[in-house]
């Protein structure tokens, strides 16, 4: 078979290193944009899910509808989400990319925040009340730190999935490393696709490790336990 861009052909191997070198600027841009979109989506997702989790914890009956809604959002095809929002918020607006990305984090984050606060032993809450901690202080200085391991796990999982999802936002001209993937897709050129996919995985792993590390910093009592185990 002659002609167009064949896999394994000398011109179009799985990865062509000169391309990586020559297009380094493009790759770096894409990587930074990927990071930016991930962080924006996570930040927005965290704010919203904190509010939702607070509602769910305060009014127990809301837990089911909140979970149902966030689960449904989670199953909606991301490609369609981006495309539908594009005419609403404009093709170029970060909002168009960030809103769906943030929406996809809700299920994981809400579930984990709620689980985290529910994991706080009743006795600890009781002791805090008995010693005269105000409710706000109890939540902030006792419950939150104890819920932190769960919350950090949620943030890890959500961040990693978001890194994967950001690539899809390339259909609306954003999407960080997804732009590389689409660049390759346009021409059946493997190198940008491989670079995009690989960097997305590497970025996910690095963020995962980073958040794991931050989580351990935030919960020294856990670290000690882990070391002892």
């Amino acid at each position, binding site marked *: 078979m002659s002609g167009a861009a064949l896999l394994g052909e000398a011109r179009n191997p799985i990865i062509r290193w000169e391309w990586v070198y020559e297009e380094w600027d493009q790759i770096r841009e894409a990587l930074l944009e990927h990071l930016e979109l991930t962080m924006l989506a996570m930040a927005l997702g965290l704010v919203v899910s904190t509010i939702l989790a607070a509602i769910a914890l305060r009014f127990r009956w809301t837990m089911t509808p909140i979970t149902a809604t966030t689960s449904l959002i989670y199953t909606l095809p991301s490609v369609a989400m981006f495309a539908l929002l594009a005419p609403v918020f404009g093709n170029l607006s970060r909002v168009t990319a960030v809103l769906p990305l943030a929406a996809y984090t809700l299920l994981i984050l809400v579930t984990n925040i709620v689980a985290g606060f529910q994991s706080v032993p009743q*006795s600890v809450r009781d002791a*805090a009340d*008995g010693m*005269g901690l105000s409710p706000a202080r109890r939540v902030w200085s*006792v419950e939150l730190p104890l819920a932190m391991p769960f919350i950090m796990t949620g943030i890890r999982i959500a961040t990693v999935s978001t890194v994967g999802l950001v690539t899809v936002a390339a259909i609306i001209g954003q999407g960080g490393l997804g732009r590389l993937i689409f660049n390759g897709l346009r021409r059946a050129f493997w190198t940008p696709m491989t670079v995009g996919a690989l960097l997305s995985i590497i970025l996910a792993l690095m963020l995962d490790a980073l958040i794991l590390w931050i989580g351990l910093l935030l919960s020294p009592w856990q670290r000690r336990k882990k070391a*002892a185990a």
Partner: protein
Amino acid sequence: MQHSFPDPESQINASRAAIRLSGVTKEFRGSAEAAVADLSLDIEEGSIVALLGPSGCGKTTTLRMINRLIEPTSGTIEINGTNVADIPAQELRRGIGYVIQQVGLFPHRSIASNIGTVPKMLGWNKKRIAERVEELTSLVGLDHDLLSRYPDELSGGQQQRVGVARALAADPPVLLMDEPFGAVDPIVRARLQDQLLELQSEVRKTIVLVTHDVDEALRVADQIALLNVGGVLEQLAAPDDLMRTPANDFVRTFVGEDRWLRRLHLNLVSSLPHHTGPILPIAATFGEAREVLAAEGVSWLGITEDDVFLGWVQASALDAVEAAGGSLADLERQLPAAQVEPTSTLRSAMELIMVSNTSAAVINEGGKFGGVVTLEGIRRGLAGDTS
């Protein structure tokens, strides 16, 4: 909320507090029966009162109404004449120590930080908190090395001690304890109970203790309030009186017919108040010997030398030896027939005393003389008479 609550000016006297419950009733929503019904109770300052009863008798509810974790449906609770409802809840709680069965230590804070929780809230400076933490650590018998550890790294008994230290941190006049030793094994529990009594002899708090363990109540409380289901007070009495003169069948059944016997099996020689008895060093004079004999009302003496028990001598032989110009060392000594260890149960000690012809057993504490156990001492120990 920067009231430094246990100040002299505070509504509750800094060192002493009496608690008075008047007609306190608590009905929970959706429950037909009251959890606590028209309960009136006077708690003397500086005493330990045990709220005892079967589950569902409202003892924990009663306790939690004192520091307003639960608000009564009707009735009033006063601490030193001040209605607790008039004190802001959080301020009130900071002035009342609170110990619970599951301890509820903050797992994410070091032991030192746990103990210092209330002082920190009261705005003490770091140095003062650190000193107080050190002091309390010694007071409850904790190893200072533990202060930098996290709760998970401590044994159940150690955690419970931290819980007590934490409750005492701001030197509150009132201590509420909700089954404080419920989660530890019987041996540790007995030790913790001893320690509580020891502690109480130093700090003299007004302590309200919830328990379902009759032995515990008998052992540590000055007064026992026996509650029945629905929060009905069946009897309020000193432990001895409760056992000797139960007010009704419920009390009799609850306290149990074989109470004494069970306690003999349960309690150790070491749990008895330290009692030396008619014991004298070998170098003592005849005058001293007669004094001790008169004071103890016995007809025999124990002789020790360098903390080692040498044997018993008969009082009747004193006059003859003194007349012969001898000393105590010249008396004929009988070797101790009854010897017990501090870890022997009271039952085995009693058995030994019965079968030997002395009326006391010698406590052998690792080869040294550790005091004597008498039948009277055992009786008093069982009755909770710690004097």
